[in-house]
């Protein structure tokens, strides 16, 4: 049940959002540029897309995202486990990971297209190369967070292994692990959309490319705004999970 006072305190956000919509409508009414469709036409185009089943193209996108994330999580767990437990490896390789993250990963997507064509593999590899390293860096930090004094104390009190994991390790690492997962999902979505737009013939990328090729502005805005909304929703859901977890870890 949302607290009414909290809802009321959201007025600055609501005001700025309303102002944005108002500016959009006024700009559309007065100067009516061809690249800015009216809100209403975007809405009805979205409804047409949804009811004609055009968004089913998104299911292949979501499936690829799922496969890509599964691979990233497994690779990320192995890599971060290894680096977090062997200090020397971490010190040696973390600078390389940081350096790799400063390069524009998007430039690699055409190479993936050359190697794997317009297949799922291309998109999965794009997802991996966008999200693996950011996730690994967060997870190493998470695994490093187990407080040594507490572990030591639990040894002194002869706590069992499961008790130690439950009471010390999980509360210490869970919030940061979830933080890493959130970063990973955000990056994976970026990798997915990037590869689909560059490929241009599958999934959501196809819808966007079709709309812009035919100068169908309402449809272009409808698809782009759907992508934006979907990534915001997944981000909000993961942030909520994360703050729940850290509240639980503190208790």
């Amino acid at each position, binding site marked *: 049940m949302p607290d009414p006072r909290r809802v009321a305190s*959201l007025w*600055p*956000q609501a005001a*700025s959002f309303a102002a944005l919509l108002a500016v959009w409508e006024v700009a559309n009414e007065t100067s009516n*540029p061809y*690249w800015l469709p009216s809100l209403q036409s975007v809405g009805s185009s979205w409804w047409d897309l949804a009811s004609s089943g055009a968004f089913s193209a998104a299911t292949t996108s979501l499936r690829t995202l799922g496969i890509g994330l599964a691979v990233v999580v497994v690779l990320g767990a192995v890599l971060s*486990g290894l680096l*977090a*437990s*062997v*200090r*020397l*490896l971490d010190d*040696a*390789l973390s*600078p*390389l990971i940081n*350096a790799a*993250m*400063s*390069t*524009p*990963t*998007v*430039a690699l*997507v*055409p*190479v993936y*297209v*050359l*190697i794997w064509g317009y297949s799922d593999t291309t998109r999965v590899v794009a997802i991996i190369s966008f999200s693996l390293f950011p996730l690994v860096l967060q997870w190493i930090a998470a*695994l*490093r967070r*187990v407080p*040594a004094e507490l*572990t*030591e104390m639990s040894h002194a009190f002869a706590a069992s292994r499961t008790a130690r*994991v439950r009471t*010390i*390790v999980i509360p210490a690492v869970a919030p940061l692990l979830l933080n890493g997962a959130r970063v990973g999902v*955000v990056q994976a979505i*970026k990798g*997915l*959309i*990037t590869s689909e*737009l*560059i490929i241009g013939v599958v999934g959501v990328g196809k819808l*966007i490319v079709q*709309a*812009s090729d035919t*100068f169908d*502005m309402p449809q*272009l*805005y409808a698809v*782009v705004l759907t*992508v*934006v909304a979907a*990534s*915001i929703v997944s*981000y909000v859901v993961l942030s909520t999970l994360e703050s729940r977890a850290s509240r639980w870890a503190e208790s």
Partner: protein
Amino acid sequence: MSEAGSYEAQPGVVAGLGASRRRRHPAQRTLALWAIRLAVVGVGIVLWEWIGRRDGGVFVAPFTTTVRHLVDLWKDGALASAMWRSNEALLIGFPISVVAGLPLGFWLGRVRVADRAFSYFLDVALVIPMIAVVPVIIVALGLTLTARVLVVVLFALPIVALNARAAVRIVERPLVEMSEAFGASRRQVWQTVILPSSFAPVFTGLRVGLAHAISGMVVIELTLIPAGLGGLIVQFRSQFAAGDLYAVTLMILIEGLVLVGLAHAVEQSASRRLGRVDA
């Protein structure tokens, strides 16, 4: 496994035992670090070369071929002119992101209502795949310099502004209040308290912003209507010119490494100098 690992990683600190067994001489340790790094990069290059040769260079151009093509393209002038064309957008767009992003971030960090009203737009900009917006920009502006600059700004400004905002927010209140109590003007508070102590996060924002800006520069050239470096990439891809495609890609990655590496070096030397002033 993980908890055992981090427990063992610092035995000297925790138990005061067995420290000498694991501790290496610093020089020896540096040597080991570089040996591991070189080994990883070396194995990567050897694998790349091997896969490329086995493949016959159709889909994977071997490392040596890539380097040869890179040199050829450079001598030919095609690479240099494409790089210049691409980097125009970066040269204009990144300074705009900094000049507009820093004041915006400082303002959001100090004015609560503004923060509540506008900061979430920046958060959203970081979270969404910005590339999805690129087709809208191209349709509206074409593949003009304005469009490319706009994309660079959209990629770089949010992170620059958000880091500046975070930086001035973490400045300790008591310090600000004390300097106000001693009659410091608004300008003096900013000059002597807020800006110096927010230096590190601001600079991190600039460095990450630069990396994002380079991505933005490449992204627009790869989407819909290819031009510049992206144009070369799309052209070579459609011609199955693997060697040239790999060479251009490598060049873009190297540019990212060099520019962000330089920014990192500037950041470190500046923060060292600032640290000395503080001390």
